[in-house]
């Protein structure tokens, strides 16, 4: 046996199971090998222990026991802890994956802080009311003049202005481009059950045309192509309760066009109109839009007006015959809502006057009921879904109408 083989006999020395030949070989080698001798001295402790039959029996008992499997270590609280950790890991993985896969929301609009109102532009009586302004002028696109202050809401994504690409032509022979018709938003048809004509008007629609006040109110509003496409596309699909959303969208779209920042030119509305809603003070103290037919005695009421063009609006109210009070008169911007102060108790007869020319607006004197009735060429429509009333006068440059609040 070589030296390495003899060293392998050390294990047999401790248990005392070496054969006489192995013992002789091991001990003779240990006498001449200090390292092996040292190993033998160190092995002596185990040798002494295993000489004890009781210790040997205990070790044999330990060897007879089945060694625990790795999974048997997970018992009791260890198993619960392992399961909990596994669940946490799985949950974390799922959350991370979902966050990765979830599409990012596309931000299409944002609310901007209200900007200080710009100085009202001068009235534009000379502006062509019913003619379309071309979006592009021959050879050089020309930005549309701004007539309105920026609205409170803004479309963040604005499509570039529809600018037809014109081939370069000699300036001397440049022919005037054909007029580009302004984009118009087709107002969505109001629910038939909700639209009805108002007393004092000539009905909900113009005979022979099928147009209603709501359609005329939104007609001829220049908007960007993007906004028009978006608005009309949605308008054709949504009805009823979604009218308010459409309304908001149309207003924002029209306002975006009105700013002229790439949209169509701002031009006067073809048919001057007023949209108003009735607001009632709720239990929380806020004024919310309601159906005018649901007013009750003692309600605190406000009115919110929106016009489809810039101009001056005047509102008068009375509690008794001929006792008119000027509630408000102010400059209106296109599609920028204006909410009045709460009406006084008992004020249920109102007169509204809206015109592009301030002098044409009722100031301190109201028309008589008869005069108001006589002058009534208004087209009125109440959109129940929006809880709003549209009044358009297709035949005159101003709109005058009466509102009678019926408190039950």
């Amino acid at each position, binding site marked *: 046996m070589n030296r390495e083989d003899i060293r392998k006999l*050390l294990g*047999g020395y401790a248990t005392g199971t070496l054969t006489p030949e192995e013992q002789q070989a091991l001990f003779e080698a240990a006498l001449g090998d200090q390292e092996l001798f040292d190993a033998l001295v160190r092995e002596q402790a185990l040798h002494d222990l295993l000489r004890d039959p009781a210790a040997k029996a205990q070790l044999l008992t330990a*060897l007879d026991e089945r060694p625990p499997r790795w999974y048997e270590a997970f018992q009791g609280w260890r198993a619960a802890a392992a399961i909990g950790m596994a669940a946490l890991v799985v949950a974390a993985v799922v959350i991370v994956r979902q966050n990765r896969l979830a599409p990012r929301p596309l931000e299409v609009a944002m609310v901007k802080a209200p900007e200080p109102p710009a100085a009202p532009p001068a009235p534009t009586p000379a502006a062509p009311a019913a003619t379309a302004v071309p979006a592009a002028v021959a050879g050089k696109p020309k930005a549309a003049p701004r007539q309105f202050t920026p609205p409170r809401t803004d479309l963040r994504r604005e499509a570039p202005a529809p600018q037809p690409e014109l081939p370069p032509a000699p300036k001397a022979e440049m022919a005037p481009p054909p007029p580009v018709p302004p984009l118009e938003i087709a107002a969505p048809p109001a629910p038939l059950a909700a639209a009805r004509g108002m007393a004092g008007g000539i009905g909900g629609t113009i005979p022979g045309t099928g147009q209603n006040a709501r359609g005329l109110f939104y007609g001829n509003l220049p908007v960007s192509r993007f906004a028009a496409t978006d608005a009309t596309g949605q308008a054709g699909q949504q009805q009823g309760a979604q009218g308010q959303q459409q309304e908001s969208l149309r207003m924002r779209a029209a306002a975006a066009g009105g700013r002229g920042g790439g949209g169509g030119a701002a031009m006067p509305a073809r048919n001057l109109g007023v949209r108003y809603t009735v607001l009632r003070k709720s239990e929380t103290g806020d004024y919310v839009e309601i159906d005018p037919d649901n007013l009750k005695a003692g309600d605190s009421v406000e009115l919110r007006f929106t016009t489809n063009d810039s101009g001056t609006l005047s509102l008068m109210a009375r509690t008794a015959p001929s006792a008119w009070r000027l509630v408000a008169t102010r400059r209106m911007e296109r599609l920028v809502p204006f909410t009045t102060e709460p009406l006084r108790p008992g004020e249920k007869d109102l007169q509204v006057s809206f015109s592009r020319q301030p002098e044409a607006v009722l100031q301190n004197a109201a028309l008589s009921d008869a005069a108001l009735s006589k002058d009534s060429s208004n087209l009125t429509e109440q959109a129940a879904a929006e809880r709003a009333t549209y009044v358009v006068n297709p035949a005159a440059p101003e709109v005058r109408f009466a509102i009678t609040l019926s408190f039950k």
Partner: protein
Amino acid sequence: MHREEVLAKLRERIVLFAASHLSRDVAEDLAQEVLMLLHEKYAHLERPEDLLPLSLQIVRFKIMSLRRKAARRGEYTQVSITDIPLPDLDSNPADYVERKEMLEQLTRAIGQLGERCRRLVRLKLQGKSFPEIQEIMGAANINTVYTWDHRCRKHLLELMGGDWEPGKR
């Protein structure tokens, strides 16, 4: 190999081993006392396989005694040869405690061995020699059993912390 020759080699080995753990003087004295004990009480033993295990046992016991005394008194003192008793595993409580601690640790370590090592250790504890183990385990060569046992012993020693005696670590 004659007895005198065996004792001379034993003395050399004991001195070198003890010197690696104790001072040189103490190692010389230790070897001398072991040889004197072998000469006086075990004069009838002549073969290396008889003398060497006995000397190993005496050396270990004497070193343990030296350590205990040094720890107890705080100094190294010479140990009279008359103080060295014959090996008796249950001679005093300190031995008993050390043995018990070593046995518990060995029990735990054996439980962590692999299946082959457990079987090999079991056969050795049952008193089987390496040739018998070769036959039982069906090893083709006795060297295979030697190798198995060498690896198992090495693994067991690692599980014990590098030394069979817990107090020496």
